[in-house]
């Protein structure tokens, strides 16, 4: 067995037995799924107690209609049809007559809101049906303690506006039903392209693209690769630094050449992330098979996923181990970790524009920058629109060149840095070591 492989096996064995690894492999999915589960659980936890709202209706035309509509809604929409369980709060309105002689009831109503007797109160201006100018009296206001995202407000606004439309149509002498049918909206559905079936000659639809495929799949693929890099490449900073600080490096250098040592560590790390990838992919595909939705998973991309993963681990890993070897303590490593993290984190920041328009020249250009290729090319490849077939190959060529460069330069920095003690290295030092060897 070669020395590289022996170093790799030792590193792998130590990494997979560590608590950090177990935590990452078990807890990361738990946290991710936990978010979804928590949201589902909280959905059933809506406050279902009645929401009381007072209305000061200065038109005298709207409040009673609002109460009618609320009553019909309360009868229909507040309970789960299947279980009969109350799922949503009922809306209860009380009419407060506008004070005569110019008094203000808002203070009293505000007090009742503060005492939680009311959810809020609505003031409808006297001229909302036929507004003149931008007078305050022309609008309506909802007074409440907070600007929460509840469903009550938009519901009230919609209902009041509908009532106002009816009133205006009546005043204009128009048939409300006829006008409404004129303005009835037409929904637009999402559809895929069509093609001619070679066998039957019939026109058939290509599978439609839905949102899960357009956003979910690329995003999951990207996150998976990101996680591989975070479990496989980035910990090399720490493990190399530890070997140096515990004075193990020079002992090892009595038996292996520096480049063999670095390659061994890289391969060990790759093994670790391969293990994580296997667990996550198997788990994810298993879940997809069980829960349905497996048809969204572009299985033909799996080989590309692994190609990008290999390149990412070796490219970033070589740089990470070079940084670990160059530093003398964790503090120095921290300051040099920043520049290494740029090519890893930057693609994460431009995910949204790239997913939205994977074929834009911005997305294409960024994905062909070798240090971004693993993340961005994979992201673009997994969007359903697809990208020109030559691009992944050009990306691959650039990425391989960058990986070889990173391993070569990393190896040289690694060799010099490992026995360098004392002075905190700067980026310029690293560059000099890489050039001079």
């Amino acid at each position: 067995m070669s020395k590289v492989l022996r170093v790799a096996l030792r590193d792998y064995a130590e990494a997979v037995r560590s608590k950090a690894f177990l935590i990452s492999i078990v807890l990361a999915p738990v946290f991710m799924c936990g978010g979804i589960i928590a949201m589902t659980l909280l959905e059933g936890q809506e406050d279902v107690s009645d929401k009381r709202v007072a209305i000061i209706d200065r038109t005298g035309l709207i409040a009673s209609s609002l109460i009618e509509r609320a009553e019909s809604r309360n009868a229909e929409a507040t309970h789960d049809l299947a279980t009969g369980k109350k799922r949503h709060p009922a809306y209860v309105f009380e009419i407060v007559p506008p004070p005569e002689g110019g008094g203000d009831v808002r203070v009293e109503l505000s007090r009742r809101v503060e005492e939680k007797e009311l959810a809020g109160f609505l003031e409808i201006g006297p001229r909302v049906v036929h507004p003149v100018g931008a007078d305050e009296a022309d609008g309506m206001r909802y007074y409440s303690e907070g600007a929460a995202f509840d469903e009550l407000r938009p519901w009230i606004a919609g209902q009041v506006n509908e009532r106002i439309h009816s009133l205006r149509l009546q005043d204009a002498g128009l048939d409300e039903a006829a006008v409404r049918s004129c303005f009835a909206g037409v929904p637009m559905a999402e559809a895929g392209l069509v093609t001619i079936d070679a066998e039957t000659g019939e026109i058939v639809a290509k599978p439609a693209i839905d949102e899960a495929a357009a956003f979910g799949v690329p995003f999951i693929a990207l996150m998976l690769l990101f996680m591989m890099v975070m479990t496989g490449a980035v910990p090399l900073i720490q493990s190399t630094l530890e070997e140096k600080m515990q004075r193990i490096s020079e002992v090892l250098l009595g038996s292996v050449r520096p480049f063999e040592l670095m390659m061994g560590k890289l391969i060990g790390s790759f093994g670790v992330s391969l293990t994580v990838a296997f667990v996550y992919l198997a788990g994810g595909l298993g879940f997809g098979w069980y829960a349905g939705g497996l048809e969204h998973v572009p299985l033909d991309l799996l080989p590309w996923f692994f190609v990008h993963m290999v390149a990412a681990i070796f490219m970033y890993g070589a740089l990470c181990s070079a940084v670990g070897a160059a530093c003398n303590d964790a503090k120095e490593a921290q300051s040099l970790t920043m520049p290494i993290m740029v090519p890893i984190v930057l693609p994460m920041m431009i995910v949204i524009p790239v997913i939205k328009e994977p074929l834009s020249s911005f997305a294409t250009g960024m994905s062909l920058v070798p240090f971004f290729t693993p993340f961005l090319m994979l992201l673009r490849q997994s969007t359903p629109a697809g990208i020109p077939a030559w691009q992944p190959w050009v990306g691959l060529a650039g990425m391989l060149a960058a990986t070889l460069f990173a391993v070569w330069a990393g190896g040289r920095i690694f060799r010099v840095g490992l026995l360098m003690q004392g002075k905190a290295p700067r980026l310029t030092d690293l560059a000099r070591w890489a050039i001079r060897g």
Partner: protein
Amino acid sequence: MHAPPKAVELEGVTKAFGEHVAVDDLALAVPAGSVYGFIGPNGSGKTTTLRMIMNIFYPDRGSIRVFGEERRGASGDRIGYMPEERGLYKKMRVRTLLRFCGRLKKGRHVEAEVDRWLERLELAEWADKRVQSLSKGMSQKVQFIATVVSRPELLILDEPFSGLDPVNTDAIRRAILDLRDQGTTVIFSTHDMATAERMCDFIFMIFRGRKVLDGTLSAIQGEYGEDTIRARIDGERIRLDGLPGVERINDHGRVQELRLRPGTDPQIVLRSLVERVPVTHFELAKPSLHDIFVRIAGPEAAEARRV
């Protein structure tokens, strides 16, 4: 008679770090099967030389041959190396770690050797413990086993005895000498002159990057001649300044070491010594390695260099 083959040969080896010349035009020939001691003050180039023999540093100039082969690019599977700055994987178990170290050099079949050494250095019951639970002395011994478990033909040890108590020092020293008896060539560096005197076939001193001594102990001492008197003095302490023909006095407490000016008759010194104090022991000797070291690298020599 054939001269024994050379295990290590250095010729004109120079290594600089930036402006600082760490090793300057060094030549060295270590005969196979010998014990070669490297001495010299801190920062004089011992570790740099050992690292160059190990191919960890590359010399700027000169050639290094180990067992007759140029070292560039070759891996050191026939060499066991224990650096001065040494450590072990703390979380690994002793036996697993030693097998890893052995296999890294030798390939396979190291199990029996690991167990034999653990037994010999009385670590057998710690074999399944983690390295972090060992005491400092025990982990030093484990470190030594890690170096020798692959049965190297050349053993390079940088300060092998530093931090060891006398019992462990003896154990390691016996182990090193046994390996020598089995044909292993040993190069080690040390600050302990007594150890170097007792253990080494050859002594090599490097000072400010240059070789200043190289040879057997008696040859080195021979260069200085019998110019030292060791005297044990009884009773209360009296200053011995102003003895005739005495250049320098090293006060070792009970024993006084007097260095004579060239051509001084020791009998005259003895007579004037007896006149002053009761002498219980008087010996005419070659200078100790310690004294030679101090003569080359001590403050007196520094003073002389400045003049």
